[in-house]
């Protein structure tokens, strides 16, 4: 069966520090991968998606970046965090145009 792992679960980082969030998927090959952000009490905003290794599409300009170094690994990064980067970050995978499966999320607080 397919599983998705996302870590860490919570993270507190100072302004200006770097960020690296990792997401891995098991039990499938060539999945579509997604990073979403959810601000407190609000809906989900698509940040990045990838349909293959090295293929990254950005939906919202910001100081975040994403990479897909392996087929089932998706990484969200920042060189210098801003206060506005705080939020709940969710990774998801899908096979083709079908149902999404989300990871358990990372709660990031920038202080």
């Amino acid at each position, binding site marked *: 069966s397919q599983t998705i792992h996302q870590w860490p679960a919570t993270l507190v980082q100072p302004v200006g520090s770097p960020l690296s969030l990792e997401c891995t998927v098991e039990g499938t090959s060539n999945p579509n991968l997604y990073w979403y952000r959810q601000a407190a009490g609000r*809906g989900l905003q698509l940040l990045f998606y990838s*349909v293959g290794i090295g293929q990254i599409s950005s939906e919202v300009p910001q100081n975040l970046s994403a990479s897909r170094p392996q087929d089932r690994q998706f990484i969200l990064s920042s060189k210098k965090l801003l206060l506005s980067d705080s939020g709940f970050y*969710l990774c998801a995978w899908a096979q083709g145009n079908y149902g999404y499966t*989300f990871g358990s999320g990372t709660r990031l607080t920038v202080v």
Partner: protein
Amino acid sequence: GIQVEQSPPDLILQEGANSTLRCNFSDSVNNLQWFHQNPWGQLINLFYIPSGTKQNGRLSATTVATERYSLLYISSSQTTDSGVYFCAVGTDYKLSFGAGTTVTVRA
């Protein structure tokens, strides 16, 4: 981009009651999904339903693609149904999420 409107924004139910959540969208889509986010933040996929009707236990969903809306029905609600219900629509691999309906089921 596609606009997604969910109603009502908040819903308070007595345990055992039935309810209907609505999702309107602004353009043609080939992907529509309903999700439930529990109080711990975990998002669970309820339905992949770009058209037609599906049922899963006490939950069912109907999408009328030609009229650009979808409905999620909760029957005999339980306290475990509490949380936020999101509708998400899209084309070409990407989904846009609505703002959600917060459901509170009281015992």
